[in-house]
């Protein structure tokens, strides 16, 4: 590989190698290089190489070039187009490339190549180039329909130019070229008319309305127009619309081709599709007849003229040449057969090839007359569709020449074999080609030996030769030549049958969609038997079974099966299938020309010249050139037709797809129909069951109804009975009530009578008793009467005085009673009043009591207040007392000091007075007064002693003076003392002050409480007093003993009635009093009074005043109590 890398261009010559392996390698390298490199170098080299050598390999590589190289390729080709020499190969290459239909082909419209092609077609004068170019253009047109917009008029110009070519340039070119040219122009006409009908027709109108072009129209265009139908677009479309690119979007290439074919009336050009097939019933026979007339169909015309002319022209040629020509024609015809599946043309070709037919036996009647047997088949073919002709016509044709000749038939069969092998059995085709080649060579040799021969003979010979070859071939096959007649006979029959079925189908419904299907199938079936015979051992039952299976779907299955088997078989037979048979054919033609060249070179020049001259032809070189170009043209034509075939194949495949879909749908439809039937059956059964059920239901309903009515009637009866019972019951009840009432009445009567009876019994007893009384009273009456008698007697005796007195008395009594009664009334009223009064008084009393309670509360409150105030004043009093005590002690102290000084300084009271006065501050003079008064104190104390004694005795009157005195004796507290003194009795006196009824009641009510209070107070004060006393005793007593001791020596002055030196007795008395008193007091005093006494006593002279006060208060209180007590008691 590496060695090829430096320059791939060097490898190009190696493409021609015979070594397959190496060839593959080189191709791989080149392709790889192309795919990797983007440059145009290699491609240009390839193109150049192709142009030089016309190498098939290079062409192959170039035609399969990929996307990025298309530009280079087209540019290169454009470049080559400019050169006159390279134009033809370039066009050939372009044709190859286009037919390959690469994906980028639509771009070609944008490249200058198209322009140069058009330019070439408009300007070039070389017919070969023109024909090739036109074919290329025709092929290209469906691929670039939208490009027509720009180049439409150029196409038309080309058409115009080429159509008038023959008339414009008469004699310039050979007839052969003209035929080719005409055919290609015809194709172009069809294409343009098919694709752009409006524009084209308008062009034709404008162009051929001119005088100078009229001839061309008459000669060339008019016949062409006879072969086309009116295009629907002419009616519906417009010029602009048909140029609209969107119109072409929905079409594929083959669609366009078929569209163009559709409008054609020419069976060779026209499509067999979509509804047009119904027309040929009458039309085709005409067409069929035309070839015989050699007037109408350009093809027939072409071929006939071509055949005539060629043969005429070639009359002078060597037989070898002719034979080669025949071979080529044969090959071409074969291809035609393949492509059109129309053996008519094939047959015509054969007819044409046959010199005898050319010589005047061109009319069918002559041929018909030759074989009545064939007449039938011929007429049958006339009647049947062209498919019928497929098998029928060739046979007929052959039979024209050699009636009963098996060989021809076999040859024909052979042809068919080739045809049928084409799609499937490549190897077989290749083998046949080889056979042909051999034949050609043999012929060449033969010709060389035999020299002149009639064309007829040669043809026959050729055919026989072929037949011989075929025999050899068929010998190898099962069901060999022995059975050939059978084949021959059977095949058309089958075809006929098939055709007739198809015809019937066509005539029957005429549906376009189904038609294609049917036709295609009939077509297939028409040929399959032959195929079948060739590849398998044919047998009658087999055939029969096949025709039994002639139904579309079954047939498709069958064919599919067969095909696969065939392929399999072929694979076994030949091994590797290397090239397509078409390619092989091309190669064959090429090779044929090559060999021909070789042979030519081998021939001695004189003989050559002699040959040429002998036939009276033109210069041999020129002839050669013509032949070559003719060959080329043929090749081109072949390629063009093949291309069309491919388009058809594509379409066929699509249609097949549709058929399959349609069948599938049909199948589905059938299935659904079946289902529908089933369901309808179901529905029917269900309906039936429904009816049954309804019936049953109705019956049940009726039963129910009857039962219900019965029950209703029963109910009614029962209700009636019940009502009767009710009424009866009511009646009975009424009766019962009546009876009860009666019973009641009876009872009443009974009771009444009983009562009456009782009464009567009572009355009876009463009457009895009264009778007894009566008797008794009677007795009494008797007695009273007697007494009365006696009393009257007495009365009479006594007199009437007493009566008056009694009356008086009675009166007086009555009056008395009256008076008493009145007094009773008055008393009662009084009582009532008194009671009312009592109630009034009671309410009053309760009110009063309430008031009293309030008063009590208030009193309590006031008492509390008073007590608090009293306590305050008491504490003040206490303080006063303390002060006084203190002052007294002070005074005493001072006195003692004075007295102590007095014995020393002389007993002068004056002195002491002076001393005291001098010692005291001047404002103390009142005190001095007080002190002067103090001598009275002992008296007071004495008197107090007395008072106590008196009080013991019960004299209360003395107490107030006693009270006043000590307070008076204390001049200092004078201002204050009287106030509490007067205050105290007042407050205390508030108790007894309320001596009224209320006060008494209050007292009574609160006695207990106040007593308890008092009792509480007493011990409190007593205790306090005791505590004080003890305290004072404890605190004061110690200093006193000495003092007492001092004082004690003077007890005498106490007893002295004189107002002795005051201090001493004053001092002495308090001291002595307690000592004396205790024994005397307990005797006379109550125990309660004892303690204050003692306290006072124990308090000594100092505590005297203090103890005196509470005692007094206590006394007052006690007095109070005593008083109240007294009052109460």
């Amino acid at each position, binding site marked *: 590989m590496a060695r090829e890398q430096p320059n791939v261009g060097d490898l190009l010559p190696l493409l021609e190698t015979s070594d397959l392996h190496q060839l593959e390698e080189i191709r791989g390298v080149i392709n790889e290089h192309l795919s990797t490199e983007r440059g145009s170098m290699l491609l240009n080299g390839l193109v150049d190489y192709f142009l030089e050598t016309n190498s098939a390999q290079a062409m192959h590589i170039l035609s399969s070039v990929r996307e990025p190289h298309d530009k280079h390729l087209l540019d290169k080709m454009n470049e080559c187009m400019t050169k006159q020499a390279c134009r033809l190969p370039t066009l050939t290459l372009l044709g190859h490339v286009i037919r390959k239909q690469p994906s980028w082909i639509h771009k070609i419209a944008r490249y200058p190549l198209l322009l140069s092609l058009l330019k070439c077609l408009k300007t070039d004068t070389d017919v070969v180039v023109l024909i090739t170019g036109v074919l290329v253009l025709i092929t290209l047109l469906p691929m670039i329909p939208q490009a027509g917009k720009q180049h439409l008029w150029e196409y038309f110009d080309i058409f115009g130019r080429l159509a008038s070519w023959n008339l414009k340039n008469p004699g310039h070119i050979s007839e052969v070229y003209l035929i080719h040219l005409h055919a290609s122009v015809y194709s172009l006409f069809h294409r343009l008319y098919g694709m752009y009908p409006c524009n084209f027709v308008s062009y034709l109108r404008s162009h051929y309305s001119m005088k100078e072009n009229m001839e061309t129209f008459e000669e060339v265009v008019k016949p062409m127009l006879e072969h086309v139908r009116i295009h629907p677009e002419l009616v519906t479309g417009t010029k602009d619309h048909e140029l609209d690119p969107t119109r072409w979007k929905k079409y594929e290439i083959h669609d366009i081709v078929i569209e163009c074919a559709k409008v054609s009336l020419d069976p060779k050009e026209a499509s067999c599709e979509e509804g047009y097939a119904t027309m040929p019933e009458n039309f085709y026979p005409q067409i069929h007849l035309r070839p015989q007339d050699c007037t109408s169909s350009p093809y027939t015309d072409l071929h006939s003229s071509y055949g005539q002319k060629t043969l005429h022209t070639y009359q002078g040629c060597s037989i070898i040449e002719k034979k080669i020509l025949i071979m080529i024609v044969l090959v071409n015809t074969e291809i035609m057969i393949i492509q059109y599946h129309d053996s008519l043309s094939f047959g015509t070709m054969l007819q044409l090839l046959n010199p005898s037919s050319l010589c005047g036996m061109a009319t069918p009647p002559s041929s018909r007359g030759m074989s009545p047997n064939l007449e039938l088949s011929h007429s049958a073919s006339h009647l049947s569709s062209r498919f019928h002709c497929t098998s029928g016509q060739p046979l007929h044709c052959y039979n024209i020449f050699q009636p009963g000749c098996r060989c021809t038939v076999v040859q024909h069969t052979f042809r068919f074999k080739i045809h049928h092998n084409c799609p499937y059995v490549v190897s077989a085709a290749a083998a046949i080609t080889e056979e042909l080649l051999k034949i050609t060579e043999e012929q060449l040799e033969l010709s060389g030996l035999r020299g002149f021969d009639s064309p007829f003979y040669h043809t026959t010979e050729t055919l026989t030769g072929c037949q011989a070859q075929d025999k050899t071939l068929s010998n190898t096959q099962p069901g060999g030549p022995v059975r050939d007649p059978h084949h021959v006979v059977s095949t058309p029959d089958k075809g006929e049958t098939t055709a007739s079925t198809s015809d019937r189908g066509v005539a029957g419904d005429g549906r376009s969609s189904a038609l294609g299907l049917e036709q295609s199938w009939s077509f297939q079936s028409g040929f399959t038997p032959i195929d079948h015979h060739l590849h398998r051992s044919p047998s009658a039952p087999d055939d029969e079974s096949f025709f039994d299976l002639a139904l579309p779907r079954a047939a498709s299955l069958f064919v599919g099966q067969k095909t696969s088997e065939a392929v399999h078989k072929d694979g076994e037979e030949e091994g590797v299938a290397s090239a397509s048979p078409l390619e092989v054919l091309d190669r064959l033609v090429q090779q044929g020309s090559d060999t021909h060249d070789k042979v030519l070179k081998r021939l001695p020049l004189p003989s050559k010249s002699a040959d040429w001259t002998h036939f009276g032809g033109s210069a041999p070189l020129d002839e050669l050139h013509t032949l070559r170009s003719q060959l080329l043209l043929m090749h081109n034509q072949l390629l063009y037709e093949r291309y069309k075939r491919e388009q058809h194949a594509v379409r066929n495949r699509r249609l097949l797809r549709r058929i399959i879909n349609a069948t599938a749908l049909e199948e589905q439809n059938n299935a659904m129909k079946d289902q529908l039937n089933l369901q309808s059956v179901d529905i029917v059964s269900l309906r039936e069951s429904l009816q049954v059920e309804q019936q049953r239901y109705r019956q049940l309903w009726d039963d129910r109804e009857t039962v219900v009515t019965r029950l209703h009637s029963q109910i009614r009866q029962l209700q009636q009975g019940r009502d009767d019972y009710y009424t009866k019951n009511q009646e009975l009840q009424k009766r019962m009530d009546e009876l009860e009432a009666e019973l009641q009445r009876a009872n009443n009567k009974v009771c009444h009578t009983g009562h009456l009876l009782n009464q009567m019994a009572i009355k009876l007893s009463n009457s009895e008793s009264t009778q007894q009384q009566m008797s008794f009273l009677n007795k009494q009456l008797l007695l009273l009467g007697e007494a009365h008698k006696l009393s009257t007697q007495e009365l009479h005796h006594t007199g009437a005085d007493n009566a008056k007195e009694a009356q008086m008395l009675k009166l007086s009594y009555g009056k008395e009673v009256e008076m008493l009664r009145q007094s009773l009334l008055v008393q009662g009223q009084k009582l009532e009043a008194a009671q009312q009064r009592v109630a009034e008084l009671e309410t009053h009393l309760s009110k009063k009591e309430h008031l009293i309670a309030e008063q009590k509360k208030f009193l309590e409150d006031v008492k509390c207040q008073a007590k608090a105030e009293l306590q305050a004043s008491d*504490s*003040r009093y206490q303080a006063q007392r303390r002060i006084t005590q203190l002052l007294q002690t002070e005074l005493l102290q001072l006195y003692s000091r004075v007295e102590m000084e007095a014995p020393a300084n002389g007993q002068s009271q004056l002195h002491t007075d002076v001393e005291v006065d001098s010692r005291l501050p001047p404002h103390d003079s009142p005190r001095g007064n007080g002190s002067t008064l103090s001598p009275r104190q002992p008296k007071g104390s004495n008197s107090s002693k007395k008072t106590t004694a008196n009080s013991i005795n019960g004299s209360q009157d003395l107490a107030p003076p006693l009270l006043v005195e000590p307070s008076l004796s204390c001049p200092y507290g004078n201002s204050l003392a009287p106030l509490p003194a007067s205050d105290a009795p007042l407050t205390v006196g508030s108790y007894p002050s309320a001596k009224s009824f209320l006060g008494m009641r209050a007292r009574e009510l609160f006695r207990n409480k106040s007593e308890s209070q008092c009792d509480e107070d007493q011990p409190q004060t007593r205790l306090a007093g005791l505590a004080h006393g003890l305290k004072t005793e404890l605190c004061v007593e110690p200093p006193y003993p000495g003092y007492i001791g001092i004082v004690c020596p003077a007890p005498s002055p106490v007893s002295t009635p004189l107002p002795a030196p005051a201090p001493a007795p004053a001092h002495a008395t308090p001291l002595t009093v307690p000592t004396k008193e205790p024994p005397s007091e307990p005797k006379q005093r109550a125990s309660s009074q004892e303690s204050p006494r003692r306290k006072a006593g124990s308090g000594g002279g100092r505590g005297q005043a203090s103890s005196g006060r509470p005692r007094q208060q206590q006394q007052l209180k006690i007095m109070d109590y005593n008083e109240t007590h007294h009052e109460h008691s």
Partner: protein
Amino acid sequence: MADDPQRNFRSAYYEKVGFRGVEEKKSLEILLKDNPLDLEKLSTFSQRFPLPSMYRIHVWKVLLGVLPPHSDSHALVAGYRKEQYQDILEALEVMRYTNASTPSTHVYLRMFQLENQVLPRCSETSTPDEENEDFLSISRAMEEIVDDPVDCYWLIKSFVNQFHTKFGDSVPHLPKSLEHYLSQEEPRLLNHLKSCGALAQLPYSIWFRRCFAGCLPESSLQRVWDKVISGSCKILVFVALEILLSYKIMLMGITRPGGVVRFLCNIPQENTDAIVTKAIDSWHKYCGTPMHAV
């Protein structure tokens, strides 16, 4: 009190949230409007809440019996009290126990002695003994609190009397209860005091006999006395306890009993308010908040 319609219904919540004393003034005014005054309610109030200073003297006077419960007789009784005071004062002056230069506290002492009949002779006047010193310090404190000398004297007198009569018996047991609470609150301190022998020497006389007079500044002292006057001597224990707890660190640092006593006799005067507050709180805690005897 909570049911009193004149009271703000929110007052209960104020207390709950912690604003104490918001409505106390008002409720106290309501209490004081009664005639006669309910001493029990007053004392309960004073135990429960701190007294507003403007009513403190009045309440004290009522609680101590200087003024009677009946407000009608207040003027009269006040007149009596004043006269009594003047009488005594004059008497003392006359007897030359006092003169113009004598400090009022001594005057009060003399008056008190006079009223209790324990006034020594002029010649025998000696240095005041322990009891007199207690009276003097109390009167010094009271003098600071009360302006009017008459009221002052009466309050001192009533306070001392009430204290002696009411709590005379329980005062000796207070040190024991202090020890008990201390053991509950801070046993370490107790142990320390015990170990260094200071427990027995703590200034009980200042704390429990003088009711912290001279120990605490008057502003704090009057709050303690509110409780004492309203009838609780336990508060003294808690004040002492709080003092000990507050100066715990310092006390723990002192090992000699003399130092402890010295420190406690001269405690710093800064945060005595807080101490008293804490003491009241713990008093409430231990003895329970006194409820109203309605």
